């Protein structure tokens, strides 16, 4: 959380706040960590101790999670991250470095996606993907997810490109590079932090998304992890296997928690860059 450190100037007030505040903060922090910690604990607890029985049930139950669902989720994440990176990098480059007719209009249009939450146009997307032959398709789902990452990602990448000193690019031109070679050889390295942030946001959203796949996917074979886990809520044979559900939650949360802890700085950059103030 380094990027948000306030300078020492405000300290005296903080110190005077004292002990009551410390207790409040600690209690709140425990409350925030508790559900996730409980979920992990509940997923390994079993009669007479601890074990992975719930995870075994998660992956072997009739309507449980199949390896294929994990594969589907990974594919959607990969397509979404790569798609977002390609489109947003080229787009950010165009918006940040070039002048062309319709530039501002297209940029505004891209940001306008933020004002029209996708939940309201998903019914139309469902019909449209059917027309395109992308019904019940992981590719179709990924294209939709990429589109809804664009406002943030393009804004982020445009800011990143604008922040790169123009001399860097000029030096590439002097070496005889064109705009595309300048991008791949020189600029991509300079905007790498932005790329990491965009990838992280795209991954987290693709991995966790529920409503879009619920509408756009319909056969068990194409389900992503969240759909498969939620499906277990309406368990067959008359009872809900809560332990298996919690193991599903923990299983889905683990990669995100690890990524988040490792890349927290990149995550926070997404906000400090002003991208969300669009």
């Amino acid at each position: 959380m380094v990027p948000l450190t306030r300078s020492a100037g405000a300290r005296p007030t903080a110190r005077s706040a004292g002990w009551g505040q410390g207790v409040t903060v600690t209690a709140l922090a425990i409350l925030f960590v508790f559900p996730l910690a409980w979920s992990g604990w509940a997923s390994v607890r079993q009669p007479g101790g601890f074990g992975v029985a719930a995870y075994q049930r998660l992956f072997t139950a009739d309507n449980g999670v199949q390896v294929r669902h994990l594969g589907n989720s990974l594919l959607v994440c990969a397509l979404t991250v790569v798609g977002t990176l390609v489109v947003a990098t080229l787009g950010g480059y165009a918006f940040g470095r070039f002048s062309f007719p319709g530039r501002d209009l297209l940029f505004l249009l891209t940001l306008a996606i933020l004002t029209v939450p996708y939940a309201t146009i998903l019914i139309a997307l469902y019909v449209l993907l059917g027309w395109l032959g992308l019904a019940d398709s992981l590719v179709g789902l990924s294209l939709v997810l990429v589109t809804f990452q664009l406002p943030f990602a393009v804004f982020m990448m445009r800011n990143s490109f604008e922040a790169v000193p123009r001399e860097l690019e000029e030096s590439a031109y002097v070496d005889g590079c064109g705009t595309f070679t300048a991008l791949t050889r020189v600029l991509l390295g300079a905007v790498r932090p932005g790329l990491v942030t965009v990838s992280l946001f795209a991954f987290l959203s693709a991995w966790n998304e529920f409503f879009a796949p619920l509408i756009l996917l319909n056969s068990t074979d194409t389900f992503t992890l969240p759909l498969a886990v939620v499906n277990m809520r309406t368990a067959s044979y008359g009872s809900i296997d809560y332990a298996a559900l919690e193991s599903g939650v923990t299983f889905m949360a683990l990669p995100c928690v690890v990524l988040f802890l490792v890349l927290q700085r990149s995550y926070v950059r997404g906000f400090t860059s002003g991208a969300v103030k669009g």
Partner: protein
Amino acid sequence: MRAVTGSGPRGRRRAAAGLLYASPTLVMVVTFFVVPLGLVGWMSLHRWPLLGTPTINAPDNYTAATGDSLLRSATWFTVKYTLVVTPLLFCLALAMALLVQHRRRGTGVVRTAFLLPMAVGFASASVLFLGLLSDEIGPVTGALTRLGLVDGYVSWVSGSPGSALGASVVLVLWRFGGFMMLLFLVGLQAIPTEVYEAARLDGASRRQILFRITLPLLRPTLALVLTLIVTGSLLAFDQFWILTRGGPDNSTTSLVMVVYRNAFVRFDLGSAAAVSILLLAGLLAINVVQLGVLRRRSR
């Protein structure tokens, strides 16, 4: 920094290159945003079955919407939910941001703890709470029983409209508190330290600093957070779909659930589109009013 504007062959070539680099964005935005946006409006004017040919029936989908009692109760509930969640989440996030604004020992850990729920998908979080609040495996009922607050069997998510709403609100506070806190922290960081120092030299109390300096200077962030919370609440789906199933007695059926139901239970994509359009219009109106009010006040 602005892009180089040029005239002559070089400028034109650069313009062409820029257009080409922007073309994937253009294709995506047009195909998956502009076209569906138009399509949803077009669909709302039709009787649009799942299979078969749509036929124009305007304005039946809209007139039917006005007489739909489920839609009416869902609208009322969605507004009520928004009115409950918005101040709670707003104040919690602001309080959290103010608490961890200054870097002290352990602040980093605390901030990470606050942000950790962000790593859990909202659908996952809803499933998590389903277990957490269940009688069978969750610790909540047991703990409250020991404290003597409840007695015996309690169904938090479907027992009563109040507890179902409460469970959903707690879930949302947990899941999004850190996220909103982060936005506030970014805004707080942008306030120059000198302003605080000047205020303190003038002998301002902490309360005065908060209400006279911090909050007014934070206005753009407040507006952003408010917009995000209101929009998110009006579109609430996952938590009710998974946690409460809209119950008990439709008491937690949200507008987006009605959209889903019209499309896939009633097989009527046209009326689902009409409800979407109404929802979209409402959202735009609220955001315009909100921005207008905040802009006027900031002048």
